[in-house]
């Protein structure tokens, strides 16, 4: 195991990684920006280093500053968390050349999976179903029109380097396709410096289900079951659960096998997620691979009893997987609610500021992952995630009941949050039945 690890992130995931390190007796170095300098969670690190001003580009996204801090603090490895530099292959590369272990997949895998069109090709090669679409990228309008004629409208134009819905357009006919290609290319070039596009058939109201993967450096790959992440708002996940509540046994098995097959075929190492969409007939299609720990990883930890961040640390330090596939037992049901600082009455606008009172829920079956406390000031510079409430109970019905009471007793004053949205989701009858898709929030809750 490593002696000393630098945590190149902030907020709840920085604290999550720190907890895993402390439990493994690994020393921690936390880097922070000026905007985070008063945060109490920094107290728990063995060493803290200020790496720049509040703006991320000069601190949490500054590769030179983070590498310098790692060298000064003499760490063996860097955990990037999620977001920021977690899927930056250049950063992974520089870590390697600096003799610092990057806790995640290799730079090559990060790069391959970051190119969505390339990942799609890899999935096709491995025999995993992908949404009908272009084989590889599309170079111009002509090619786009040809693909559209073949797969039929509506189609989705997507950026290879894409993420978070940017560089994405829906087209219902030739005219909107041509316009969409131009708009998506311009947006992708502006956002990612790369205007490469590909196309997929539009799947209406899909479910979003993803499979957690672990791979070690000896070629062993296992899956840890799936998560249903269909409760989304503008392509952003709001609530996740594991296992997926309504999935035929054979589909579930095929999903798991497909994920493992793809991970094996590309030589995936460390922790990652293979994401799929399912249409209303439970046909599934690969969409992408996330080559990092995800926000929603705790639901998988609860149903398997496996600590994913500790596994990341073990794998990166050269250990073999601590569980064989047979040893992974899925038990019980877990739900996670992401609590954001945002105003539910004003189009969920981010809402930073001073948290005057913060009383997290507790008791049986409740886990809270948060860096927030009474008196914490939510900076305006970073994302609005305040923390996550995770419940774990023997059955889904019990998990729903526990999450309801946990949300009801959660007190957050001083800033607006999305607690009320979660309270409504947990009392919605469609959600209670367990089968819902990515249109659920819009159809049942956001309309009013």
């Amino acid at each position, binding site marked *: 195991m490593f002696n000393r690890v630098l945590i190149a992130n902030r907020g709840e995931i920085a604290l999550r990684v720190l907890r895993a390190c402390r439990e493994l007796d690994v020393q921690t170095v936390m880097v922070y920006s*000026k905007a985070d300098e*008063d945060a*109490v969670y*920094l*107290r*728990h*690190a*063995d*060493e*803290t*280093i*200020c*790496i*720049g*001003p509040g703006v991320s580009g000069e*601190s949490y996204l500054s590769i*030179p*500053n983070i*590498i*310098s*801090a790692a*060298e*000064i*603090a003499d760490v063996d490895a860097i955990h990037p968390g999620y977001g920021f530099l977690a899927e930056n292959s250049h950063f992974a590369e520089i870590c390697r050349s*600096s003799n610092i272990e990057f806790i995640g997949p290799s730079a090559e895998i990060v790069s391959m999976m970051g190119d969505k069109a390339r990942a799609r090709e890899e999935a096709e090669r491995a025999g995993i179903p992908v949404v009908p679409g272009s084989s590889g990228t599309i170079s111009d309008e002509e090619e786009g029109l040809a693909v559209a004629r073949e797969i039929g409208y509506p189609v989705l134009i997507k950026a290879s380097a894409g993420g978070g819905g940017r560089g994405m357009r829906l087209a219902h006919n030739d005219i909107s396709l041509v316009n969409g290609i131009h708009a998506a290319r311009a947006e992708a070039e502006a956002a990612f410096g790369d205007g490469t596009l590909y196309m997929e058939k539009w799947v209406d109201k899909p479910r979003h289900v993803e499979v957690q993967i672990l791979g070690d450096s000896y070629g062993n790959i296992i899956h840890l079951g799936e998560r249903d992440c269909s409760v989304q708002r503008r392509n952003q996940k709001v609530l996740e659960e594991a296992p997926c509540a309504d999935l035929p046994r054979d589909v579930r098995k095929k999903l798991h096998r497909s994920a493992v097959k793809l991970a094996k075929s590309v030589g995936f190492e460390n922790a990652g997620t293979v994401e799929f969409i399912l249409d209303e007939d439970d046909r599934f299609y690969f969409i992408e691979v996330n080559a990092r720990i995800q926000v929603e990883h705790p639901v998988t930890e609860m149903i398997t009893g496996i600590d994913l961040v500790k596994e990341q640390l073990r794998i990166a330090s050269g250990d073999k997987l601590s569980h064989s596939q047979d040893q992974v037992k899925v038990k019980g049901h877990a739900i996670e609610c992401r609590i954001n600082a945002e105003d539910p009455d004003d189009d969920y606008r981010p809402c930073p500021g*001073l*948290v*005057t*009172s913060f009383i997290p829920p507790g008791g049986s079956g409740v886990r809270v992952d948060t860096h927030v*406390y*009474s*008196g914490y000031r939510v900076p305006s510079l970073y994302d609005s995630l305040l923390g996550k409430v995770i419940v774990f109970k023997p059955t889904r019905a019990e998990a729903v009941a526990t999450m309801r009471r946990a949300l009801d007793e959660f007190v957050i*004053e*001083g800033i607006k949050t999305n607690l009320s949205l979660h309270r409504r989701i947990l009392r919605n009858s469609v959600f209670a039945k367990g089968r819902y898709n990515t249109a659920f929030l819009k159809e049942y809750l956001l309309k009013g």
Partner: protein
Amino acid sequence: MDLDMIEKLLELMREHEIVEVEYEDPEAGTRLKLKKAVPPPPPSHPVLTPALALPAHMEGVMPMGALPPMAPAPAAETPQDVERANLTEVPSPMVGTFYRAVSPENDPFVEVGAVITDESVVCIIEAMKVMNEIKAEVAGEVVEILVQNGEAVEFGQPLFLVRTE
């Protein structure tokens, strides 16, 4: 808070018919409450004290390595005997290793007493094997050099104390 101040407060209370005063200053660790004999007050609002001046001390005996002290606050390093006027710190613009000279054989860029301009190179900070020349960004006389040669510095850490005009 002293008795004089309390006495003054009590006078003000009488003068203005005030029946209750509460005052807290967690920084100073003081809390004062003065309450006159009056008929039972209405149910009081529970005050969720948000005024959390956090750091304070951690409670009780701390196990080894449990909670290390935070990086020293820059203010703590300000010498108490220097005149407060016209003193400016030159902060480190990056994380790295501080060097006072180009190489061990060379003379330091500046010594205490040196008069510098905004453009004067005052030190080198090595980051990712790159030697970065750091300019003062302030003009005046170097009063103190706050970091030892070869020490690691973090972003914003004061490097020099300069007396400006």
